[in-house]
């Protein structure tokens, strides 16, 4: 039997980065907010403390911080003609669970997208002509511009205390920063991280080739910082256990270190953990949400009525929540009609490994999640794509985050995959190899999408999300081209052997790439090609806002979190200053 609870102003589904920031702002504005988190509550002390948190087997291999896929997996297939099967072990991407969400296990790489990215369709046509794009690509403009988002990027970076070096402040280029970045209003809140040896080697080689290296913007902080919420963060110690782990030092910007202490102290907010939201409930006309239904850890079902529902789950779970709730028309790849699940995109990751003699000591373990050095000379539209046959690009950088013993063992091509030969190669190369990441954009295309699986269900009896994805030809060509540039930089470091590994099809879910899943509830100005308007408000049910990287119409050359933070504050402004004063559609369809 469902127990109906007292109505509140706002329900937030998922108390991760987005959920805690939104809840904090709305609770502070006087609204009664309930945060429903499916995982457990957890804090820097005691949950994130070492030595337990440095358990590579538990966190890296067994994915202790991730969504429980014995209860709630996704199903996957490369193409619509195949039968999707449940992903029983996370490898390719790692959705988190628990208070603080996926941000708890992030690397802290905090980029902005460029002005061009937000108007990708328009700018591409302008620069390269109408026929440049493959007709299967469904890239589109975001409905919001970089200039509009800049103050919100700034606010987010100052919340986190991001350590970096500006390259462009109000149009003035600053040496040492990224000259390609779109103008920012001021310097980063804290100075860049110390450069590790791999970064220094990369910097020298890239500079000699005429490129523009700069320090990776890091939200593992270079010095103590007190954020505008009054919360203190500590300095990163370069332990090399960021991604897939939580930080024991209060040094990584995560909800626990930037916002939760303020949120949890506000009596207008109530956190409920162990609560699995089943659906957003709608009125009979399906024009208005009435609240949500959830099941708690004891198996009891509750209805939580609310005037405003915000879904702030991990990107793919936002998509699933709309599909389970019947909000918006599901996408159909055959007709190209429908929007929910459309424009699922990812990230196109390639690598370059440079192998040195044993007298070159790299010490790869002396690293942090975002302490590398990189170039944007081949990212986004920072180079001329005429005649190349693709759009997009990748940043290239010595951005290796760790030298952890179970997972980190670079070996040259031709090394046996196991046995004595492999072991000897691991010993020989572990401390004498420089790894570059090539972090590539991902275009959306007609055949890649998300929907509900017709066969498999979760532990609560609800259909799983089904992912249909393979790399578009556009991105494979891009990876090939940019990897050749990465190899040139590798050679310029003086390495004895350089091995480029451009991303190749088919996409596999059994190899880690990134947790940068985007799209499926994309934003835009046309309801026939977007799920939410430019304020991330559902076109169909105006008291539902969907905040996540699920809003990205396609993915850019950089890690998505900075842009998600900016969109979060952008949406909060629209909520506080527009929607809540007059709850209705903010953009007429």
């Amino acid at each position, binding site marked *: 039997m469902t127990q109906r609870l007292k109505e509140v102003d706002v329900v937030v589904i998922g108390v991760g980065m987005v959920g805690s920031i939104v809840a904090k702002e709305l609770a502070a504005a006087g609204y009664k907010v309930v945060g429903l988190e499916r995982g457990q509550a957890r804090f820097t002390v005691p949950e994130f*403390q070492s030595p337990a948190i440095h358990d590579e087997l538990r966190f890296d291999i067994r994915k202790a911080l991730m969504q429980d896929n014995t209860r709630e997996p996704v199903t996957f297939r490369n193409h619509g003609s195949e039968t999707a099967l449940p992903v029983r072990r996370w490898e390719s991407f790692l959705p988190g669970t628990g208070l603080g969400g996926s941000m708890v296990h992030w690397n802290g790489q905090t980029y902005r997208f460029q002005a061009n990215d937000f108007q990708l369709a328009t700018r591409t046509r302008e620069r390269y002509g109408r026929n440049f794009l493959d007709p299967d690509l469904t890239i589109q403009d975001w409905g919001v511009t970089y200039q509009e988002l800049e103050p919100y990027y700034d606010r987010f970076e100052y919340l986190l205390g991001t350590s970096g070096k500006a390259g462009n402040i109000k149009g003035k280029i600053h040496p040492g920063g990224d000259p390609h970045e779109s103008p920012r209003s001021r310097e980063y809140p804290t100075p860049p991280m110390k450069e590790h040896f791999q970064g220094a080697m990369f910097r020298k080689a890239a500079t000699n080739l005429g490129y523009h290296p700069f320090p990776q913007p890091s939200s593992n902080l270079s010095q103590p910082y007190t954020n505008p919420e009054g*919360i203190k963060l500590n*300095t990163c110690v370069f332990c090399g256990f960021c991604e897939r782990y939580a930080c024991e030092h209060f040094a990584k910007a995560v909800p626990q270190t930037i916002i939760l202490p303020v949120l949890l102290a506000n009596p207008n907010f109530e956190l409920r953990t162990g609560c699995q939201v089943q659906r957003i409930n709608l009125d009979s006309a399906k024009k208005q949400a009435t609240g949500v239904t959830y099941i708690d850890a004891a198996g009891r079902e509750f209805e939580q009525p609310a005037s405003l529902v915000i879904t702030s789950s991990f990107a793919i779970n936002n998509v699933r929540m709309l599909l389970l709730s019947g909000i918006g028309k599901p996408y159909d790849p055959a007709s190209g009609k429908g929007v929910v699940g459309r424009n699922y995109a990812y990230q196109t990751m390639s690598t370059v490994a440079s192998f040195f003699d044993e007298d070159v000591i790299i010490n790869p373990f002396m690293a942090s999640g975002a302490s590398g050095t990189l170039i944007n000379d081949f990212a986004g539209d920072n180079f001329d794509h005429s005649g190349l046959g693709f759009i997009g690009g990748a940043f290239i950088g010595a951005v290796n985050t760790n030298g952890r013993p179970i997972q980190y063992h670079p070996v040259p091509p031709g090394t046996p995959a196991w046995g004595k030969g492999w072991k000897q190669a691991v010993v020989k190369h572990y401390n004498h190899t420089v790894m570059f990441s090539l972090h590539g954009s991902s275009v959306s295309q007609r055949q890649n999408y998300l929907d509900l699986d017709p066969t498999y269900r979760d532990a609560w009896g609800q259909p799983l999300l089904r992912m249909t994805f393979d790399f578009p030809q556009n991105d494979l060509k891009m990876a090939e081209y940019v990897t050749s540039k990465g190899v040139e930089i590798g050679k310029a470091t003086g390495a004895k052997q350089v091995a480029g590994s451009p991303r190749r099809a088919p996409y596999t879910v059994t190899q880690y790439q990134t947790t940068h899943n985007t799209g499926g509830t994309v934003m835009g100005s046309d309801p026939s090609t977007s799920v939410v308007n430019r304020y991330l408000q559902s076109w169909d049910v105006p008291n539902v806002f969907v905040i996540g990287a699920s809003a990205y119409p396609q993915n850019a050359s950089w890690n998505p979190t900075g842009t998600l933070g900016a969109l979060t504050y952008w949406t909060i402004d629209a909520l506080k200053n527009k929607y809540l004063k007059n709850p209705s559609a903010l953009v007429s369809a």
Partner: protein
Amino acid sequence: MSTDVDHCAVHTASLLLLIVSLQVIAANCSVAAEAGTRAANTALCESCHGANGEGDPEAGVPVLAGQSADYLEKQLRDYENGTRDNPIMRNFAKGLSDSERAQLSRYYASLPAPGPHAVQVAAVDQRQWARGQQLAHQGAEAERVQGCNNCHGPDGSGLPHSAPYLAGQSAKYLANALKSWQQGTRKNDSGQLMVSVAKQLSADDIAAVSDYFSSLKVAKN
């Protein structure tokens, strides 16, 4: 004689006298010994830190025996450049060449670390000891400090090169060190990590965590 800056057990007048006399010794010393053997100028150190680097826990003079050589060497440099502000140690450190600093540090690192000090588990307040243990192992969310052992190693046994062992160290020395981080007379860690940690600790917490570590044996590597 107490070496840490803020809470000397010795009157200023006699301290000055001692400094003058030790400077004379320093001027007449030559360094000839190899690393790992007794260096000629350890006489300088021994007068306070003991014949075997065992320190003087009651006076707050730290144990040096078995401490990380890199850590010791850095401290000697920092006494000279003032980022670790201690008038007594500054005078000694000023007289040392690079190679003397390195030799002394390696020498003391090579000595066996002593056992637990006068402060025993049974002798201290059990609640205070438990608080010290909590701060050491897991830190405190309310104060936003991480556990000491994250950097200082299991049971405070040290993580070379930069994090000294704390186990078996003089409680008085540890407390004085934390206070000097708080007060800004010590600011020689990169990233101001210890500065931010120490500033979050109350006087009771400083006493608790110092007594706790002092009561532990140094783990053998």
